[in-house]
């Protein structure tokens, strides 16, 4: 889902920056109240882990590969705001240091992957964990990445409506919702399995090795 700069209209990315900035400020205030001395280095470390997890291409049947996001993991281990800010940070560092993604697509990815993904993962886990924790973790990972993909597909798919040149050709991303939704959702149905497995395995690993974080919540 790494979209370079230039495909999103300013009519979309400027308002989304406004929404993101509000959410970043609110999230930062919430985190400042909540984080203790151990949690800040832990968030930073988990952000670095999330970054490297995004780089890893997991081979899938059929010769394709998938990149996971670790958003669900951050959301269920911490909360929505910690996950949203960490993922935003990863996306920002990825965009400005390594040229993956862009500065105009940052709010699209931050809201789609970071915020929507975290909200979906957090509430899926919260609802299903009363029944079966492992299923809840897997569902949180699978659903969060798929709903995020849907949100980004919608943003990309509305770009042809944002303006056309005199000869009728598009000015930004050229394909509509009928192309972007299946193009993003179909592979993510499979990628979600990788995300779900990663969420289960890593959460259980953290519960065993870093239990104090869970006790303090």
């Amino acid at each position, binding site marked *: 889902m790494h*979209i*370079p*700069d*230039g*495909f*999103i*209209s*300013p009519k979309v*990315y*400027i308002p989304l920056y406004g929404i993101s900035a509000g959410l970043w400020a609110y999230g*930062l205030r919430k*985190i*400042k109240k909540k984080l203790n*001395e*151990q949690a*800040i*280095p*832990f*968030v*930073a*470390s*988990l*952000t*670095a*882990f999330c*970054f490297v*997890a995004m780089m*890893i291409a*997991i*081979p899938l*049947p059929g010769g394709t590969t998938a990149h996971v996001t670790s958003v669900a993991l951050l959301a269920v281990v911490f909360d929505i705001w910690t996950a949203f*800010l*960490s993922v935003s*940070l*990863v996306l920002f*560092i990825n*965009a*400005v*240091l390594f*040229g*993956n993604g*862009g*500065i*105009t697509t940052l709010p699209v990815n931050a809201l789609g992957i970071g915020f929507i993904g975290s909200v979906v993962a957090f509430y899926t886990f919260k609802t299903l964990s009363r029944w079966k924790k492992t299923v809840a973790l897997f569902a949180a990972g699978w659903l969060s990445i798929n709903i995020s993909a849907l949100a980004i597909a919608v943003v990309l798919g509305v770009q042809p409506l944002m*303006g056309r*040149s005199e*000869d*009728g*050709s*598009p*000015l*930004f*991303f*050229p*394909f509509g919702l009928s192309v972007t939704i299946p193009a993003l959702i179909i592979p993510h149905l499979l990628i979600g399995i990788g995300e779900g497995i*990663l969420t289960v395995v*890593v959460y259980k*690993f*953290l519960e065993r090795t*870093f239990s104090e974080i869970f006790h303090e919540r």
Partner: protein
Amino acid sequence: MKDKLFLLFYAAAVIVVTSYHNIMFLAGFLVVMFVLSGAQFLLLFRKAFFAVVFFNSIISVSYLTVSLIQGHPWAQYIVLINLRVFLLTFMGFFIINRVNLFKALSFSSTMTFILVLAGSQILTFKKIYDDFAFALKSRVIKRAQTKDLHNYISSMICFFLNKSVNNSREVTQAMRSRGFFGD
């Protein structure tokens, strides 16, 4: 202050470049950026090219195919989008080379705190990730099988997870011992 101003100019330039759809204007802007980049031109050009070539090729080829089938004009869009995307990416790398991002984003001390800690660990992790990739490459002659790749990835995830947990403990202790938490 200089870094914050640079970042503001960059933000304004991004809005201008994405709001004007004149090919000559964008081409002129790109030439100005090439001149300003000076001795770093080749380095920035190569970085920007490799950052966009994959995504842009897919979009350009798909759009070209659809337009040829439907009989729509395609040349203007393909030139416009590739020019704009390349210009914005080149400009991004140009700014990164000249601005200290940690200073530019120092409006929040907590955010700077997390950014510095995360940024430094990311750079270390990226280097280790590259070492892992080279290690795999040097140990296989043919393309590795899917099962071997899954084993390789599992080991790598476990390593990074352990390292993240240990790093966070070390950083916490280091910060506590230096009085960061006011104990």
